[in-house]
């Protein structure tokens, strides 16, 4: 299997247009700004919820999803904000949801761990580790049956990589030769358990044993991620089946917001990764080749700052959902009339 080596700094590779790099930066910057503000708002007690932020992991969402079309579906995890933003979910709609108000992505019924927006292909995320893999198989199967060259992607962590649900989904993807990417975001930990303890080998090593292509990629280097994902998506669209991408990265905010103690996260490891911050790496690469980068960067960051602040305003301004709606929408079938106890009403 093709193994991309970890590159210490990513010089601009041929074949990646500068405009694409700028877009990647914009996406990562949006994710970083969104997550950092969510972090502050949570710390200040303004945002409720059980939050798993992805600051530090921006390159995985940005680099992979840059290759996907709106109709290419993804499934994600409890740590899904980055995937949602990269896939094009409205930051305001997300923020309204995080505020627990009406009119957001999930009508207040999902929250951070369950963000979804079918219209832009962010099909599902959720609190069950590994559960997105089978769902993504169905997205890929649907694309294949429809005869389009659509693809699907499932994002999951290094911890989820040990879950039987994910493993048997890898097998089915290979057997059905589905157009799907298994994107393992290896941020070194599942909660406080190190990848070195939850798996005797690199998760990507498993792919071959199921007859699946794989690449291990530096998840801090968005260009490397973008290129590897490009190869995988091309393979999928060409009907050559699934690919497993293992992207090594790091979560600046640990396992979840409010996590009691992070002592298990060794400072030297963290500073290594912060030293190779995905935004800084890409900015450096762009500065080296793009005259007006400083101005463009400032512009982008200003825009995004506004975008996120107005999303927060939208969250603060949105009305609370009507408590009566708690019992609405359990079933999609419009003919179902049930009472509070789930009993048919004639």
């Amino acid at each position, binding site marked *: 299997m093709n193994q991309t080596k970890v590159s210490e700094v990513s010089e601009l590779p041929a074949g990646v247009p500068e405009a694409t790099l700028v877009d990647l930066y914009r996406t990562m910057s949006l994710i970083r700004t969104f997550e950092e503000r969510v972090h502050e708002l949570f710390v200040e007690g303004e945002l409720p919820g059980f939050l798993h932020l992805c600051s530090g992991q921006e390159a995985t969402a940005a680099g992979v999803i840059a290759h996907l079309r709106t109709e290419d579906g993804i499934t994600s995890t409890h740590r899904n904000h980055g995937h949602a933003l990269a896939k094009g979910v409205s930051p305001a709609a997300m923020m309204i949801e995080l505020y627990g108000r009406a009119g957001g992505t999930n009508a*207040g019924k999902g929250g951070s761990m369950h963000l979804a927006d079918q219209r832009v292909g962010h099909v599902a995320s*959720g609190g069950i580790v590994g559960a997105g893999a*089978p769902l993504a198989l*169905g*997205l890929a199967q649907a694309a294949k049956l429809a005869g389009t060259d659509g693809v699907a992607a499932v994002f999951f962590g290094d911890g989820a990589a040990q879950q039987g649900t994910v493993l048997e989904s890898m097998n089915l993807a290979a057997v059905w030769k589905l157009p799907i990417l298994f994107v393992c975001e290896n941020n070194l930990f599942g909660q406080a358990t190190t990848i070195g303890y939850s798996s005797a080998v690199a998760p990507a090593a498993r792919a071959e044993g199921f007859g699946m292509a794989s690449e291990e990629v530096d998840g801090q280097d968005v260009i490397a991620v973008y290129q590897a994902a490009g190869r995988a998506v091309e393979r999928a669209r060409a009907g050559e089946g699934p690919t497993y991408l293992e992207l090594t990265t790091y979560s600046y905010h640990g396992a979840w917001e409010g996590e009691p103690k992070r002592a298990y996260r060794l400072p030297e490891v963290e500073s290594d990764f912060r030293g190779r911050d995905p935004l800084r790496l890409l900015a450096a690469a762009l500065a080296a080749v793009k005259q007006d980068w400083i101005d463009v960067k400032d512009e982008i960051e200003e825009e995004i700052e506004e975008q996120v602040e107005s999303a927060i305003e939208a969250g603060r301004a949105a009305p609370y959902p009507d408590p009566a709606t708690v019992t609405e*929408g359990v079933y999609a079938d419009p003919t179902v009339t049930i009472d509070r106890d789930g009993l048919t009403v004639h």
Partner: protein
Amino acid sequence: MRVLSFADAINEAIQLEMARDPRVLVTGEDVAGGATIPGFDRADAWGGVFGVTRGLVTEFGRDRVIDTPISESAFIGAAIGAATSGYRTVTELQFLDFMGVCLDQIINQAAKLHYARGSDSAGIPIVIRSMIGAGSRAGSTQSQSHYSTVAHFPGLKVVAPATPADAKGLMISAIRDQDPVFFLENKALYETRGPVPEGDYTVPIGRANVVREGRDVTVVTIARMLSVAEKAVAELAGRGIEAELIDLRTIAPLDLPTILESVGRTGRLVVVDEDTPRCSVASDIVGLVSSRAFDKLKAAPRMVTSPHTPVPFAPVLEDAFIPAANDVVQAVLATVGQEVAV
């Protein structure tokens, strides 16, 4: 009217819907059979362990009738994902006993996705076919009827037909439904035969069926227990006790109104359920009726269930495990007797 077996009635329903709607798929272990074996795309294919899906691969091909590895989480989850893309998969969890290897996809994904995504989706239209029922001498892990565990979860619909005609009509309804439907098939019913209308018709999900009217006691049954209760009811009629017999047909959402209407007239209730008793559909119905129609009850409502044990293998033990007609007779006599005693 034309007579079909329970198994063939289900087969016909799926065949009709597959012909009507190209987005209807069938997946599961050996639902076709012999995938990748040269020549086995055709009539020779198995069509499932009991041949319920036999012939479908011949007519609709391997793209729509898809054998799977023994990976229930993966292929049931795939059906859910495909549902979000507009496909309607009839997937098979061979025995309900196996739900433990894939229940998350059913209770946390299929059941909740519509609601947790804000209830603005087209729902999760999948049908999960699964076998229930003891009596085949298969032992503790291939004989259970623990449907109360799935009926518990908001977002799921659960049906359990007792006759070939209802099996066909409920399957057509299930495939057309916007929500995930658990379709339970009691193994012991597959070979039973009954009149089945030709062509396209539906039996509504969420409606119980009053099979027999009677003034003295309301007897509610689930799936195969209908035939057990029918024997009991006949015997009771001989003793001058007229039982009203209600075949539940749908376990969730529960058609309590039909039961309450009947109990309102009879004042007595006996629920017959092949499942074990704790947190069962039987105790659920007795509890709901007692709390909502207490003043209508003339005697203690009763449940006839299997005992609180795993399903044993030995024929003499398994036969003692499954509710029998006489258990129903005794329960009815007790409810009536109680009043006489009063």
